[in-house]
């Protein structure tokens, strides 16, 4: 017997045609799944009534896989086969993984992404994530009473193409139809219904279990643009537990503890932290394996004092994000709180002081991202309510372009363009008779390719031989709704084509991305200068080559005197090419131009004569 849900007026589904869609927050510490039921977004709980699934997967020797609480319980016993925080490894190579030496895992470096050797075989981060998603999918199908039509998975705003692709692959591997990926801060903003609110700038402060992210979003016409992101990949609620744990050790005068006792006390510390959100004091009592007993009481004031430096550490990234976005706090219309740790009153207070306003906190900060994703999934699956005809768009985080002559990055799709996006640009050949062109796809905000990130390279072959600059090669960039890129190049006269789907081999860390953005601001002037220099060098080289070719062909058009004057200007130009001032090269080019003016005129006459030779006027 089917259990029915209340629909919006006029939106009752046909029997057996329910379009069940879910939003999944695939977190570093915990994951959740949510859906819209009876017109309201709700998080789906497991049989024990728990919403949060710890993002922990344990691989056993018999091939069994334990996910969540069960895996967490084995963490101290079997750390090598129990994978925590796998999100940090998504789309990353071994050299991108920080503190490998502190990790208990047996890492294998493999092309594209790091892998982990476990008792159940070698696992990639995509497989581990898929094991988490499978549990959430089963929970959702049981809760909703049917197979899922589709799912939205959230990702941090700073995730690059490799990390997004890895997340999408994990969804597919878990048997989910991934409707799209959604930026976590955008999902949080949707949960608060901000996309229906007035246009403006919003900040999303996300203090999760092990990571801190701040995002500045700009809402205009129902589209959220990520203006800036910042954060600390090694700061989260767990650090507050750790701080309290250390305080307990000092207070109870305990010697360093065994792994098991540490786990017990850390759990107690976390419970005390949570209690202190609403209570003025919390008592921590435990009996350790060695027989000692711990019995201490911590007040809210003491807890806030000892963790104040941790709260302060979140504020610097907030200020940097505001600065990157070129804003002061008065422009921020609302601040959304995400992550369980934002429940702590002193975190709320610090954020209120920094932004000069009380943050939005009436939704459960642990669930807000999943709820927003569920609302968006419901719309994308076709269950839109009347009057709700918005389709939310995302933007690309870093500009995409190609390398041109001289190692310059030519932007094809600028950063913050809404996706899906498709843009084309025409390029041409540099040399006479050039039959192939190498296309190098890059990502970044800097002017020189060497300062950007290389995404892919491919070659377009079979260009018919033509003079330099005559061929027309149309390069098309296409970014799909998930921010994944494909690039194609087509020569117009013959239609020869080459294409590549960009599946970058490894990703950048969030620090690197923010660094890249910051560098592009810091180096703006240098970059413009470097660009001008390279452009003049390319132009100078082209000039030398073309003039020398002309001299070989039509030297007889010049007197010995003219010829030697031109040659000496060419020599002078060749020398300026190694200068670091683009103006010197430019004046060299101009001098060659002037010196070759008469020569060019005579060559033109000759070629016209050749073209006309033996033809009657009437036939022209």
């Amino acid at each position, binding site marked *: *017997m*089917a*259990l*029915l*849900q*209340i*629909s*919006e*007026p*006029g*939106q*009752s589904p*046909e*029997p*057996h045609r329910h379009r069940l869609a879910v939003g999944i927050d695939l977190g570093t510490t915990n994951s959740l799944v949510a859906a819209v*039921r*009876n*017109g*309201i977004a709700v998080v*789906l*709980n*497991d*049989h024990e009534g728990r919403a949060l699934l710890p993002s922990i997967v344990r691989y056993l020797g018999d091939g069994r896989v334990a996910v969540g609480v069960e895996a967490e319980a084995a963490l101290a016993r079997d750390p090598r086969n129990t994978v925590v925080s796998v999100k940090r490894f998504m789309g990353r190579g071994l050299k991108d993984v920080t503190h490998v030496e502190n990790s208990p895992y047996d890492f294998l470096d493999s092309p594209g992404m790091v892998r982990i050797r476990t008792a159940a075989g070698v696992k990639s981060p995509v497989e581990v994530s898929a094991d988490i998603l499978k549990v959430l999918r089963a*929970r959702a199908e*049981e*809760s*909703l*009473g049917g197979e899922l039509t589709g799912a939205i998975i959230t990702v941090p705003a700073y995730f690059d193409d490799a990390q997004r692709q890895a997340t999408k692959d994990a969804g597919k591997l878990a048997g989910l139809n991934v409707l799209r990926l959604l930026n976590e801060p955008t999902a949080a903003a949707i949960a608060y219904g901000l996309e229906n609110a007035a246009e403006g700038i919003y900040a999303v402060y996300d203090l999760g279990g092990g990571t801190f992210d701040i995002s500045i979003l700009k809402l205009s016409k129902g589209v959220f643009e990520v203006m800036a992101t910042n954060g600390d990949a090694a700061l989260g609620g767990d650090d507050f537990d750790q701080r309290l744990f250390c305080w307990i050790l000092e207070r109870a005068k305990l010697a360093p503890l065994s792994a098991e006792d540490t786990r017990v006390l850390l759990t107690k510390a976390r419970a005390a932290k949570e209690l202190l959100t609403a209570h003025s004091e919390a008592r921590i009592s435990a009996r350790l394996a060695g027989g000692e007993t711990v019995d201490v009481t911590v007040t809210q004031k003491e807890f806030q004092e000892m963790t104040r430096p941790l709260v302060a550490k979140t504020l610097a990234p907030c200020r940097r994000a505001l600065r990157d976005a070129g804003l002061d706090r008065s422009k921020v219309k609302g601040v959304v709180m995400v992550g369980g740790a934002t429940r702590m009153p002193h975190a709320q207070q610090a954020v209120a002081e920094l932004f000069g306003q009380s943050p939005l906190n009436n939704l459960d900060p642990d669930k807000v991202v999943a709820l927003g994703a569920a609302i968006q999934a419901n719309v994308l699956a076709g269950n839109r309510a009347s009057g709700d005809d918005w389709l939310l768009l995302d933007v690309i985080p870093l500009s995409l372009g190609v390398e041109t002559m001289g190692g310059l990055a030519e932007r094809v799709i600028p950063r913050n363009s809404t996706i899906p996006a498709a843009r084309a640009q025409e390029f041409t050949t540099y040399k006479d008779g050039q039959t192939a062109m190498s296309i190098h796809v890059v990502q970044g905000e800097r002017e020189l390719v060497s300062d950007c990130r290389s995404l892919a390279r491919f070659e377009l072959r079979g260009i018919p031989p033509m003079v330099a600059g005559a061929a027309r090669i149309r390069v098309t960039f296409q970014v799909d709704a998930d921010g994944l890129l494909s690039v194609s190049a087509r020569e117009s006269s013959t239609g020869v084509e080459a294409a590549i789907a960009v599946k970058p081999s490894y990703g950048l860390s969030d620090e690197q991305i923010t660094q890249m953005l910051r560098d592009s601001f810091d180096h703006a002037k240098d970059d413009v200068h470097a660009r001008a220099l390279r452009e003049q060098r390319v132009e100078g080289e082209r000039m030398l080559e073309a003039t020398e070719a002309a001299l070989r062909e039509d030297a007889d058009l010049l007197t010995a005197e003219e010829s030697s004057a031109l040659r000496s200007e060419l020599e002078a130009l060749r020398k300026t090419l190694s200068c670091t001032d683009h103006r010197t090269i430019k004046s060299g080019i101009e001098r060659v131009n002037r010196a070759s003016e008469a020569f060019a005129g005579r060559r033109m006459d000759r070629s016209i004569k050749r073209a006309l030779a033996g033809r009657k006027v009437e036939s022209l």
Partner: protein
Amino acid sequence: MITLTERAANHVSDFLVKRGKGVGLRLGVRTSGCSGLAYRIEYADAVNPDDRTFESHGVKVVVDPKSLQFLEGTELDFTREGLNEGFKFNNPNVKDECGCGESFNV
């Protein structure tokens, strides 16, 4: 007469508060589905002149006169089956039902 169980009424009231608008619950049937008729259960934002309304545990239930012929005497319940939960029609008019209970015949 159409009634809600107390549990169903509590859930509907709760949903209406969270939704932030609506005057009550609209129940109805339409011809479709594998057994002829299918239930409709929607939020009511307005009551039409022809509609019949019932009050049950503080929730206004709105039914159009045509649907009422097939729903008279129905009690709407809210139940849980494993992780799934939702509304269930206990409709005395039903002669046969498709296995899923989403559509029926009278």
